[in-house]
């Protein structure tokens, strides 16, 4: 879907693609890039009594920002991840949903279009997050994530667009995606 959207946009925009001076790629392609900044708007749910939602939301936000930045980086800013089978991306999913995520890569990342993408220039990345606390720590979160960018391909450039709802689970390894509804491409 994304591939088609990219190619279509590239063709209709008529822009000539140029090799980016710096790639936004991450480890898989061996080039460094500044961390993507995700603008997070947070709220929190917790015990009925003795729970300060504002404080809780603020405290949990930095970890979430790092996780979402990591997700968007490996999913969209590093086309070279495709060559590794999106290993780093899939590792961000909870084990029970990794198999499904592997099938849905086109809706979760550059997917099959990555082979044609030279680089992606990130645009706005915004997230509305609702944390769930148990005691003094967050254990789950719902994330409404929106990301826009521009992909450079051979024929020109085209928009990259993600709209998703993620249900996250806090694990020993940090946040992991336990469920998702995700769409990429022009219709997202």
């Amino acid at each position, binding site marked *: 879907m994304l591939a088609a959207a990219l190619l279509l946009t590239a063709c209709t925009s008529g822009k000539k693609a140029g090799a980016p001076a710096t790639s936004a790629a991450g480890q898989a392609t061996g080039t460094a890039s500044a961390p993507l900044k995700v603008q997070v708007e947070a709220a929190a749910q917790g015990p009925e009594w003795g729970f300060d939602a504002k404080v809780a939301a603020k405290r949990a936000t930095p970890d979430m920002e790092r996780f979402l930045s990591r997700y968007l980086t490996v999913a969209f800013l590093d086309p070279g991840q495709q060559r590794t089978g999106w290993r780093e991306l899939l590792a961000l999913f909870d084990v*029970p949903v990794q198999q499904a995520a592997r099938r849905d890569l086109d809706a979760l990342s550059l997917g099959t279009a990555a082979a044609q993408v030279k680089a992606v220039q990130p645009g706005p990345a915004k997230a509305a997050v609702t944390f*769930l606390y*148990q005691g003094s720590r967050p254990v789950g*979160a719902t994330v409404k994530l929106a990301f826009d960018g521009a992909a450079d391909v051979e024929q020109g450039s085209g928009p990259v667009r993600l709209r998703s709802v993620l*249900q996250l689970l*806090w694990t020993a390894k940090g946040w992991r995606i336990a469920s998702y509804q995700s769409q990429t491409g022009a219709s997202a």
Partner: protein
Amino acid sequence: MRRPTAALVALALLVVAATVGLTTFLRRGDAAPAVTVQRAHKGAAAPSFSGRITFLVVGSDSGAPKFGRGGVAERGRADSLHLVVLDASRRQGVVLGFPRDSYVPIPGHGTNKINAAMAFGGPPLLIRTFEQLTGIKIDYFALTSFDGLTDLVNKVGGVQVNVDMRIRDHFAGAFLDKGPQRLSGERALAYSRARKTVPGGDIARSRHQAQILLGGLGTFQAQVVKDPARVMKWLAVMNDEVQSDLPFGEQLHLALFARSVSPGRLNNVVVPNQPGTAGSASIVRLLPGAYSLFARVRAGQLA
């Protein structure tokens, strides 16, 4: 059992339904948990959340101080009994209602009313009784009480139910007109308890209990469709109301699993039965059709 952890939305719903007779208090201070959710078999591996999961949802007649019911829910008689089978891969399921007076073999206790199994040996014996009777493996057990049902339903803003008959039952405090309506916890409990003046008696009551359960499920799904973050809000409510030994991750997966089957794809069936007597006791005998039904469910025919 560990401290009350976050509740399962799904189970909450189930519990709600189950609630038919269960009670509980808000889980606060020394109060007992409103609802208990646990694995049916301790130490068993978690089921696949992309396949089929079976819940035994039970309402106890004990442990409900608000309704003047003393004792402990786990040792009370199970007055509301439903097997809920959900198949996420097929997006369908079935709710099997069992009349509380169903006269069945109870392991180690001869043949007796099915609702006595929990009083004899707690939830483990009730689970064994159901598994032996139906041949269906149970994954999760949810127990609630009168108090638990009312608290839970009120906290989620009521449940939408299509009341299938006009009811004026002083015994259960049920005064309801026919038709779709949003029921508060107290009215949901009354609807699920009404029996003596209701055509069909126990059978209708079992069906109504399942309607409450499905109404809870539908309410949850409708809220989550409108705002996915409601999952966390429901889990927060459950966290206050439910006692569970399940890790939070499993609870979250169960809650998400509850989104997979819409109430319209859940078949609400009371197992075929016939009133009878055993000595001087009024009982209900399961008919051969009940066993055929169990066989179909085992084979995956849930529609």
